[in-house]
């Protein structure tokens, strides 16, 4: 009897130990891949980053995970404050021990957080922030430290090329006097300086306005008085919608082209009460319902299903592609170890087809290139113009759906 019990107990113990071993071993292998996401949830841009990353992680898991492992997203809100961004990043790196960090719509937060991620030798996928500092400057100056940074958001030296297309088209049509109205913010200082220099013999009036300004009566009147027929208007701030309405109401006889975040909204036609005919801005095509790649439209519809509205801010698209591009790199490398993934992502045959475009490869400052945008061009960005309730793409050539026009009422006044 005693012997029986003893052998019974030992067998149970052996079984238990065995089970424990197997359980431990399988949990090891089955431990999820962690993607840390940090952005400012109180703002449309930051919320876009969160949503794009969420959708990417969901899609990865729906396709069976990454390298056979489940993908887990850890999301932190940084309230657009650098100190929160720093502690959130450190938490992701040293407490949650994530494998990669994706995020930052706000450029100043990206600047602060990037060195932390680099120090930990983890990859940082930028989705949203466009400051040249984090790629153009830092990767060039110190490749060894900063090689772990990749971005799907072209830096401002490139995006301003897209914004310039409206001016270029207008000049082609014979308009010649530019009023340059640019908001006062750090991101567009290079743009302002560059255009002031490039178009110096065509600019008749220039002004910087605050990002919270909603009344442009003075600026517009001045522009009109000086005979401007091109209104190069650049804003990410409060003045997006009021400026268009005011331009129309005041009948400023100039083409309104540049960058206007509000004008990216698919409902902008109704919002401005149809005053936006002829307004040109740039947008990430993939989230604008334009079939940049076969994945664009399905993504567009999935987003609406998931969140009840079509994508408005561009950040969700680039964040989605940032996560997916990294996943692609991981698949190519066969591991999540940073150095191997960096090598994989630097391959000239990277060829990842995203929502915003095809990434043929990442260039030497880890900006994406391909699919209609060459090197030195703002990957993913299309220049579009509002024409008769639709957003018509007029640049780049590959995705063009129509020509740039001068709205009728402006034509009448300028005679062009």
């Amino acid at each position, binding site marked *: 009897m005693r012997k029986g019990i003893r052998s019974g107990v030992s067998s149970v113990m052996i079984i238990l130990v065995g089970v424990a071993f197997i359980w431990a071993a399988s949990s090891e292998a089955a431990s999820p891949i962690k993607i840390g996401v940090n952005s400012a949830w109180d703002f449309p841009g930051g*919320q876009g980053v969160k949503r794009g990353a969420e959708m990417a992680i969901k899609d990865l898991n729906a396709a069976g995970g990454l390298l056979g492992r489940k993908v887990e997203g850890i999301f932190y809100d940084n309230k657009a404050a650098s100190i929160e961004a720093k502690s959130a990043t450190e938490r992701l790196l040293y407490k949650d021990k994530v494998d990669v960090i994706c995020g930052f719509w706000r450029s100043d937060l990206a600047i602060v957080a990037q060195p932390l991620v680099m120090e930990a030798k983890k990859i940082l996928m930028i989705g949203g922030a466009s400051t040249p500092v984090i790629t153009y400057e830092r990767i060039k100056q110190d490749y060894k430290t900063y090689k772990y940074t990749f971005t799907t958001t072209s830096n401002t030296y490139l995006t301003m090329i897209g914004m310039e297309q409206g001016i270029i088209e207008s000049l082609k049509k014979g308009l010649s006097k530019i009023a340059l109205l640019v908001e006062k913010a750090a991101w567009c200082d290079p743009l302002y300086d560059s255009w002031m220099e490039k178009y110096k013999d065509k600019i008749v009036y220039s002004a910087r306005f605050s990002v919270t300004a*909603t009344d442009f009566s003075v*600026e517009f*009147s001045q522009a009109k008085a000086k005979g401007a027929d091109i209104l190069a208007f650049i804003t990410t701030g*409060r003045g997006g919608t009021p400026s268009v309405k005011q331009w129309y*109401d005041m009948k400023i006889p100039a083409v309104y082209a540049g960058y206007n975040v509000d004008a990216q909204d698919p409902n902008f036609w*109704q*919002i401005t*009460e149809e005053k936006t005919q002829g307004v040109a801005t740039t947008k990430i095509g993939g989230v604008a319902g334009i079939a940049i790649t076969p994945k664009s439209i399905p993504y567009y519809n999935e987003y609406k299903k998931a969140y009840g509205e079509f994508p408005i801010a561009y950040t969700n698209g680039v964040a989605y592609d940032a996560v997916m591009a990294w996943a692609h790199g991981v698949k190519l490398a066969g591991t999540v170890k940073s150095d191997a993934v960096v090598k994989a992502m630097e391959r000239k045959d990277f060829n990842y087809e995203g929502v915003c475009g095809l990434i043929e490869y990442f260039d030497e400052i880890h900006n994406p290139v391909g699919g209609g945008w060459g090197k030195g061009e703002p990957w993913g960005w299309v220049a579009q113009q509002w024409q008769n309730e639709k957003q018509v793409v007029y640049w780049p050539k590959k995705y063009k759906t129509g020509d740039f026009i001068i709205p009728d009422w402006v034509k009448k006044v300028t005679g062009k």
Partner: protein
Amino acid sequence: MIETIFIFGIVWTALYCLIAIGFSLLFGVAQVLNLAHGMIIMSACYITFLFVTALNWSLGPSLIVGIIATVCLMLIIWLGFIKRLLTAPVTSLLLLTAGLANVIQQIVILTVGPHTKYVPSMITGSTTILSVTLSNQQILSIIVAFVLVGLLALFLQRTRMGRAIRAVTQDRNVAALSGINAEEMYLVTIIIAGLLAGVAGLLVAPIQTVTPEIGWEMMVTAFTVTILAGLGGPIWGIIVAAAIVAYAELITAFLVAPMLKEGAAFVIMILTLMFRPLGLFGKGRV
């Protein structure tokens, strides 16, 4: 150029007037600096948005609901919170209303979301005056603003209740001797302030853009105009103060730089607080 500044100056005078008057009234009558006033106006904007854009009600009923909701919000804040601290030191009220403002702002961000919201104009089309084109919505705002101020002035001067409120403003103890119940008068003032805030929200929403940040910005405007006009002064002092701020901004944009436009309001506020804390028309101690 001059005409542009002149005409748009009137538009912004009217809008600033609308934003400030509810705040100013409460400050004048009950000496309460309701730092949540800007947020209340913002709530009115959002409520209008919810009904008109999100729920697709037609404009008329939405406006009425918007105003009623704003008045209710004001009443809740008064009865539930401010009233209980009327006898506490001043700083408590400041902290309380600032805290409430933040609560409101956070609730809005969490429920409606951070994206900019749009409210359609009540009247479409535009009119040209003196070769300056204004949208009809802006003209409507001007008319409503001046009418409201006029009505308020009449109410305070000519009606019995208005006179009672003015008595309470001067000295609530003496008023009590005449049988005027200060509590009741405060309540009436709150309702009027709520109405004014509601109307301000409705008129401002189509012209501004509606985001969670405008709450504090409107608070700064309301405060600047009120301080400039002065505590205890006549109602039309608000119009003058609003005009000064509006024109200072436009002139700064024209003569100095558009970027510094909003700085003009700050400068006015600081100068007033430092050199003439009573404001232009104020009476009483600072």
